[in-house]
């Protein structure tokens, strides 16, 4: 295997594994910047994964190639609806954010598996027939070497994720709306005093995390697992949560952290195909992503500080 082939294998598997994390961690960034801690990302991803697979299985024959893309939207919408539970509980009903988020994580897998059993009469679904396929960047794919590594046969949802990251970063830090959203996470009393609708902003934050978490779960299900079962989403939501904290609650940071996790994960998965790496005992390859994360965090980042009012209920006084 020559170097270019190795690099392009590594790059393509990195971005496939990163994409679900990017979407989901971006959702977390929005929720927590509005002041609502969201550890329910795992549950939201599960609902997104389940609904996109069901949609894909049902409509693949009539919709054809566009099916997985609509599946993403369906996953996002279902995730959004599911996250309403968290929004209502934390924003209106004064629930503890951690407990409410845990409810999402507890609720989603049994609900999804129950529905699978009720609809398909078995514990897991069939494999989907329509997947994302590969995408060549027009123009850029023709650049020698770099084009071959980065832009040929790439995973299109990854590019969508990167574009979404930039847009969300711009909204959060460069627009009036973003400032207001962040002010609700830093100091809701002050935001309310100057006329910001704290409850409204927090709804936007949580529902964005529902939409993006659902899309993240849908990407994972449609691109990586190919079907839905109880073991489809096991820990990816927590990895996204970690990516969000690693990225210091910033969209760009969350994306970079997700890419790092995706890279580390793909090294451990395709490591046996790579020269040099194939002599390392597999246990080190399996542990490496997680150990390296801790080490990097300790060495270079130190304290990561959440938005000041993250996780605190804001109860508007009458």
């Amino acid at each position, binding site marked *: 295997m020559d170097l270019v082939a190795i690099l392009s294998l590594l790059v393509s598997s990195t971005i496939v594994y990163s994409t679900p994390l990017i979407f989901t961690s971006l959702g977390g960034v929005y929720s927590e910047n509005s002041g609502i801690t969201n550890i329910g990302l795992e549950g939201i991803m599960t609902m997104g994964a389940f609904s996109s697979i069901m949609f894909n299985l049902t409509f693949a024959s009539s919709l054809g190639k566009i099916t997985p893309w609509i599946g993403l939207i369906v996953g996002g919408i279902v995730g959004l609806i599911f996250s309403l539970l968290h929004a209502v509980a934390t924003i209106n009903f*004064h629930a503890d954010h951690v407990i409410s988020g845990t409810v999402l994580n*507890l*609720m989603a897998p049994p609900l999804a598996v*129950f529905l699978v059993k009720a609809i398909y009469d078995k514990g897991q679904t069939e494999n989907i027939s329509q997947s994302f396929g590969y995408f060549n960047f027009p123009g850029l794919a023709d650049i020698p070497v770099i084009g071959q590594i980065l832009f040929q046969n790439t995973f299109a949802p990854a590019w969508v994720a990167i574009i979404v990251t930039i847009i969300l970063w711009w909204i959060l830090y460069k627009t009036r709306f973003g400032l207001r959203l962040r002010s609700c996470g830093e100091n809701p009393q002050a935001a309310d005093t100057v006329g910001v609708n704290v409850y409204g902003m927090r709804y936007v934050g949580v529902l964005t995390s529902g939409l993006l978490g659902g899309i993240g779960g849908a990407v994972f299900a449609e691109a990586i697992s190919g079907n839905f079962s109880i073991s489809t989403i096991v820990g990816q939501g927590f990895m996204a949560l970690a990516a969000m904290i690693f990225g210091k609650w910033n969209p760009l940071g969350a994306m970079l952290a997700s890419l790092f996790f995706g890279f580390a994960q793909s090294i451990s998965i395709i490591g046996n195909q790579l020269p040099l790496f194939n002599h390392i005992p597999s*246990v080190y390859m399996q542990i490496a992503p997680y150990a390296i*994360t801790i080490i990097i965090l300790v060495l270079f980042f130190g304290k990561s500080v959440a938005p000041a009012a993250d996780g605190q209920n804001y109860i508007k006084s009458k």
Partner: protein
Amino acid sequence: MLKVTPRIKKFLVLTISILAGFLVGAVIMLIWSYNPFEAYSSMFSSALGNMNGIGETIREATPLIFTAIGFAVASSAGFFNIGLPGQAQAGWLTSIWIVLANPNMPKFLLLPLATIAGAVAGAFVAGIAGWLRAQFGTNEVITTIMLNYIVLYSCQYLMQQVMPGGLRIDTDTTKTISQNGSLKISWLTSMFGESRINAGIFLALVAVVAYWYLMKKTTIGFEIRSVGANPYAGRYAGMSTKKNIVLSMLLSGGFAGLGGVVQGLGTYQNYFNQTTSLDIGWDGLSVALLGGGTAIGILLAAILFSILKIGGLGMQTIAGIPYEIVSIVIAAIIFFVAIQYVIGLLFKTKPQTVVDEN
């Protein structure tokens, strides 16, 4: 609107939350045309209707009491210990290994040794996260999530590659432990219809009392709670934040490790390869949240949780209703407990004591 004292209000709100959770399950069953009465009656009759069922329910609750206390200790110090599965797993493998490696040691030495070693293993795993937090301010949510995976794969490696082959049946399962290291008590087993109930429940009850005493009656507990409530105030009063961070995580991991010990030396009598994070860790988190972090709350929540889990198995075989309903009911109950503010609006508290629930 009813006028009640705060204590009765708390009780009523909790009862309504539990009933509402069952109602959610019933509605979902009705939508998919299952019979909720049949479901719930088969659930309760199989969890509590015979001695074997009761024994299994108690057995199910045993490790959850430990992991829930583990979560609650860290939680009162202001930490979110999401690493319970890894800490419990470390305790499980350690205790089994020690018992298997010392087949001739007398029981009065071996059992305490294995139990304590399991607790130490759990404490060690959690201690890493605590130490990093105290020393470098590293976020414990990330480190404990990462440690779960590290422990998961390390245990796989240790068991399959490092453990002497003579202690294993095959690559995925160890031998069954000898009587010398087992928490099984024959009269208890036969009393509860040959179920897997074991002495772990007595340890768990001791742990509940110890947890209550530690948090409410000792200086250590007071400092942990103070630092959790307000680290600045704690430091101003001369408490070491760093020391309390590490201490609370060590205690938390120790309890979680014991959860793994009773699972190993009590329930399964061996260790077998795990491919995902241990359930008792995640369930312990739910039990702690459901029990509101208090000693008695954790005990009752663990029992309720186990009735549902064990009863759910019976419901699936007797009434043919998917087991998942049980987990949905549990999640719904916790949801209603979380929004108790709203349920509390149904009742007026008597004016003499003003208690703000939040």
